[in-house]
């Protein structure tokens, strides 16, 4: 080969490389952080059909738990653009928006012809994106709604012999519980360690929010509260008699679970239920898809779903309150691709895409949520549509992660028996007030501490049990 041929070949090769580089540059990658699972896979799958082929949605997935929050927080700490958007827990909005790391969704609403507030239920938008509460400032869109739910073994509940035996022992019908008091009786009835069967499964693990999302559900239902958002008092609220009632009930329910279940996370609850060891379990709606899948749960066709029970508190009022789950889609304010991301969101939040998403997970789009088609898609969507009105959340404060860890530690102490429930909640209240004061909050101390704090803060108590349907 002569020198000219060499030159020609080199020129062609260089041109090809340049063209390829040019083509690669034309592709915009929008990276998102979330915990790995069905819903993240669904977004990636749907995004493959995004008409603008120059945009690629890249998942950066981590396991559910502290790594997930840590990955987002670490990137914000260096003010980096390692991801463009992230699905973060509802209660993290205050932490990330308060730190100035989240891009304003109000700006997106004002610049977009497609995205606006009316696409979502006001409560959903507030839960997953508003900070400060009631301010009308939004920092995330309800991309994946979730709530703490309930599942049970229909075959056991419908067994004539079991029904008769239960009625003989407790003098009432065996049916999915409307109150925790009923749940305790049923759990006790089905707790048969010799047969490898237990009445109740719930999370109690020290990791992330495992114990407190469960214990809070009990606490709120018994009329307790985490704090007073007006005065920032924690003492007298978190350790109020009603809060203690609720958390004590939660701790006592471990008596009807397998030994060691005080250390469980959602994975262990699912595994125990799928192995037929549990008659009832508290579990997030998020997992209903897999728990109703016969290839995952051998009792799938015998599994019923519904909402968690409520409780009759010491004031005689009935309350049904459980932890909200799910995530808002927040935008990294340091991202250099916010325009491209906005266009993607305009496409993604249209009903066609959201219907596909809602086939496997819980969408936040009002039109899909309210459609009979979606509600009839499986045995639990209808219950989920009702669940949202009963949800409650952690503190919407930038100090959320610290407060959460402190409460986790103390609830874990109560579960393990190291402290009494009262002592654990008193210690948690003290730590929380110290944290709030260090962050600059002024705690306005009231003269009287309420016995049932819910009576003072957005009361939800009812005079009688309001039953909900089960699958």
């Amino acid at each position, binding site marked *: 080969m002569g020198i000219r041929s060499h030159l020609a070949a080199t020129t062609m090769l260089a041109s090809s490389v340049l063209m390829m580089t040019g083509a690669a540059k034309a592709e915009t990658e929008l990276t998102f952080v979330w915990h790995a699972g069905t819903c993240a896979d669904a977004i990636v799958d749907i995004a493959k059909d995004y008409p603008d082929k120059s945009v690629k949605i890249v998942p950066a997935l981590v396991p559910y738990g502290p790594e997930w929050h840590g990955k987002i*927080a670490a990137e*914000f700490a260096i003010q980096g653009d390692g991801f463009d958007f992230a699905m973060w827990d509802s209660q993290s909005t205050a932490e990330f928006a308060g*730190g*100035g790391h989240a891009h304003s969704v109000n700006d997106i609403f004002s610049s977009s012809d497609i995205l606006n507030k009316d696409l979502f239920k006001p409560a959903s938008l507030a839960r997953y994106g508003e900070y400060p509460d009631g301010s009308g400032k939004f920092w995330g869109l309800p991309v994946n709604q979730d709530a703490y739910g309930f599942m049970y073994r229909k075959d056991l509940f419908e067994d004539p012999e079991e029904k008769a035996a239960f009625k003989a022992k407790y003098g009432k019908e065996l049916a999915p519980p409307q109150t925790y008091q009923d749940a305790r009786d049923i759990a006790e009835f089905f707790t048969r360690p010799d047969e490898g069967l237990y009445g109740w499964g719930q999370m109690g693990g*020290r990791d992330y929010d495992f114990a407190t999302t469960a214990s809070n559900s009990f606490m709120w239902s018994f009329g307790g509260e985490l704090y007073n958002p007006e005065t920032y008092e924690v003492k007298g609220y978190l350790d109020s008699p009603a809060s203690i009632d609720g958390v004590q009930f939660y701790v006592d329910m471990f008596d009807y679970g397998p030994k060691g279940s*005080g250390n469980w996370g959602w994975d*262990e609850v699912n595994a125990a239920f799928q192995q037929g060891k549990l008659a009832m379990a508290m579990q997030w709606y998020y997992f209903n898809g897999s728990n109703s899948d016969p290839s995952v749960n051998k009792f799938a066709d015998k599994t019923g779903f519904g909402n968690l029970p409520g409780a009759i508190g010491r004031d005689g009022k009935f309350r049904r309150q459980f932890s909200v789950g799910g995530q808002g889609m927040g935008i990294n304010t340091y991202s250099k691709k916010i325009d491209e991301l906005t266009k993607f969101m305009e496409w993604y939040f249209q009903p066609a895409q959201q219907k596909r998403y809602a086939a496997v997970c819980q969408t936040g789009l009002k039109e899909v949520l309210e459609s009979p088609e979606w509600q009839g898609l499986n045995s639990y969507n209808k219950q989920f549509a009702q669940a949202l009105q009963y949800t409650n959340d952690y503190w919407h404060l930038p100090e959320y992660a610290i407060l959460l860890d402190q409460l986790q530690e103390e609830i*874990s102490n109560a579960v393990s028996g*190291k402290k009494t429930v009262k002592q654990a909640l008193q210690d948690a209240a003290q730590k929380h007030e110290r944290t709030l004061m260090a962050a600059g909050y002024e705690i306005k101390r009231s003269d009287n501490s309420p016995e049932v704090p819910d009576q003072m803060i957005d009361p939800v108590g009812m005079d009688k049990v309001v039953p909900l349907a089960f699958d």
Partner: protein
Amino acid sequence: MSNTPQMPRELSDRVLCGIFIMPTLGVLLLMVAYPFISLLYYSSLSFSVLRPLVPARDMGLLNYELLLTDPDLWQRFIFTGKFVFLTVTVQFILGITVAYYLQRDFRARDFIFTLFMLPMMLCPIVVGFLWRYMFNSEWGIVNVIIAAFGGTKLDWLGVADNAIIAVVIADAWMWTPFVILLATAAFRGIPKNLHEAASIDGVSAAYRFFRITLPLSMPILLIALLLRLIDAFKQYDLFFALTGGGPGAETMTVSFEVGKIAFKYFYTGQASALAVILLIIIVGLSMVFVRYLNNVGKEQ
């Protein structure tokens, strides 16, 4: 004869040395000195890297005072000390015992030796999750074995006293191979003629082990001890995956506490102060050992 002025030979060597050392010195300054000085500076502030809108406050030595008067932190130190003592003791007893048998030549020795080394090659966080499943009270293999022998299933990770045993077992499983590795190398490095001479003199195996094998292996065993102590002291991953620091805060080590304050609470100033305290402890511990090691070396 050249008219070029000659540099004094001594000065020229110094300049040359300086030129050669400068890149390394630069890297050292950049990689060690700068972060260390930054760490000292940050430890005197109250600020959070996650809350850049809140201005940093000068705290002087208050972060150190707050930490050192916090009873919870002392609990972490006590737990860490307990953990380090237990795990390193178990690792050395098992490691030296196994190494004693592995120093001899026998069939399949290399194969068995390689098998013993496998846990050490795993990622600590993987080991943590692996043992977490094995310690599951309901379906974990550990309780299944206990039940098969007629024992009562234990709540390994939900009860504080059991949890520390669980972590020690997992840590010892992973790091005993390291002790085996170094101890075997040390034992096999002892001249054979010493053992032969002792045998001829009719010395018992135990006497030979305690009076020949152990003393002559001491420098290497001390290095192993130093490395294991430091490593156990800063163990984080295993606790993160296995217990999450729980139940409560019962299995929270000092390193776990640093991680929590730095990357969960994002109290950057306080975390820096705690890191400085830890650094002082580890450097102090290392200096004591290195001095002792030097003395042993001189005696031998």
